[in-house]
């Protein structure tokens, strides 16, 4: 019964932290593109810098560290190379060239958003005892995500990226891919037995990027996506860190420390691109650390691999090892 309650609470929680920011910002953000205010800045700080920094917590878990060190290519060398490469790129490039690099960076970021949505939909299927996501459902989710990132990167004012070219054909090609993905996803859903939670999870993932074509203000179109992604991540990480099988207070305290301290540093570095040599290098370090977050996450949550599956199942048994629903 407790597992059932925890499962329901998680499913309701991740849907809430996804839908509320996306819908609320799309409807309520100022249409003239001004930021919605100080409390909003605090939420955005938590959902962007703090969530990226929280990835560092994985390196503090004694049980996980040997796994990370045994795969240095993904968990040590790639992050180090990205940080050094990021600093070099920010140092050497400027103006329009740097804007193109940043556009590619944001493209990767939004693809990373959709990979997380895919992971959450897969987790919802598993937690609710439904059949795993099909290839068609996965492809549809990735197609809508690709459409979304093209839709955003084609209109760089949506990410407030000065100096990047406006590419209306890319923006609308993204809309085409997004529509195709939604249609393919809807078709795939008709072949599934009706399970409201899973259908809602899949629909949320498929329609995640919809505001990109509905509203024109950066805060209305994109800030909701940024906040939703960050809060999804922090919710999952807090559950993993605070699992009953662990030294819960210590793990949570370490998580909060790592996330806030490194998050504060990331937040300070994120806007140094206009400064001198050292400032620009620090901005590059920020870019590298963000990319390292994408790379580490793509491995550490991968349930196809045995170690992450065992590690996460031990901590989230109510999600990953639920009793199967008959019928």
């Amino acid at each position, binding site marked *: 019964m407790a597992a059932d309650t925890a499962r329901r609470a998680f499913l309701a929680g991740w849907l809430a932290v996804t839908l509320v920011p996306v819908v609320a910002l799309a409807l309520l953000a100022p249409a003239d593109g001004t*930021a919605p205010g100080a409390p*909003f*800045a*605090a939420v*955005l*700080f938590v*959902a*962007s*810098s703090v969530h*990226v920094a929280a990835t560092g917590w994985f390196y503090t878990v004694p049980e996980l560290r040997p796994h990370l060190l045994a795969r240095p290519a993904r968990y040590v060398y790639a992050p180090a190379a990205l940080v050094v490469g990021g600093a070099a790129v920010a140092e050497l490039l400027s103006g329009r060239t740097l804007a193109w690099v*940043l556009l590619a*960076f*944001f493209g990767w*970021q939004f693809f990373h958003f959709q990979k997380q949505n895919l992971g959450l939909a897969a987790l919802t299927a598993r937690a609710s005892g439904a059949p795993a996501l099909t290839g068609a459902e996965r492809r549809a989710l990735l197609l809508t995500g690709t459409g979304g990132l093209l839709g*955003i990167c084609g209109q760089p004012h*949506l*990410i*407030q*990226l*000065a*100096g990047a070219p406006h590419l209306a054909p890319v923006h609308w090609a993204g809309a085409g891919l997004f529509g195709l993905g939604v249609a393919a996803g809807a078709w795939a859903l008709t072949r599934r037995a009706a399970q409201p939670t899973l259908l809602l999870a899949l629909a949320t993932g498929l329609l995640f990027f919809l505001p990109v074509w509905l509203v024109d203000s*950066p*805060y209305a*179109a*994109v*800030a909701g996506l*940024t906040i939703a992604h*960050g809060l999804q991540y922090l919710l999952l990480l807090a559950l993993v860190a605070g699992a009953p099988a662990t030294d819960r*207070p*210590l793990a949570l*305290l*370490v998580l*909060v*420390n790592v996330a*806030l*301290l490194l998050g*504060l540093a*990331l*937040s*300070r570095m*994120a*806007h140094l*691109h*206009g400064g001198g040599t050292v400032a620009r290098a620090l*901005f590059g370090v*920020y*870019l590298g650390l*963000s990319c390292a977050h994408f790379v580490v996450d793509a491995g550490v949550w991968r349930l196809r691999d045995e170690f992450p599956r065992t590690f996460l199942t031990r901590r989230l048994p109510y999600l990953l090892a639920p009793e199967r629903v008959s019928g």
Partner: protein
Amino acid sequence: MSVLDEVTDAGPNDATPSPPALPPDEPEGRRRWLVYLVLAVVLFWTVVGIVLFGINDASAAGGCGGG
């Protein structure tokens, strides 16, 4: 005579003596509280840092948006 000898010497009908209670692991407990203390102090100063330095203007896409 060690605890092990006592157990070995005891006949089948003898009551098996309980092993002596281990003393509380005080150094481990102290180390644990020290870790909590350090983490609490770091957290306090991080929050002070956030209040003092403030948060950079919020960018819609997070991070380096707004450039």
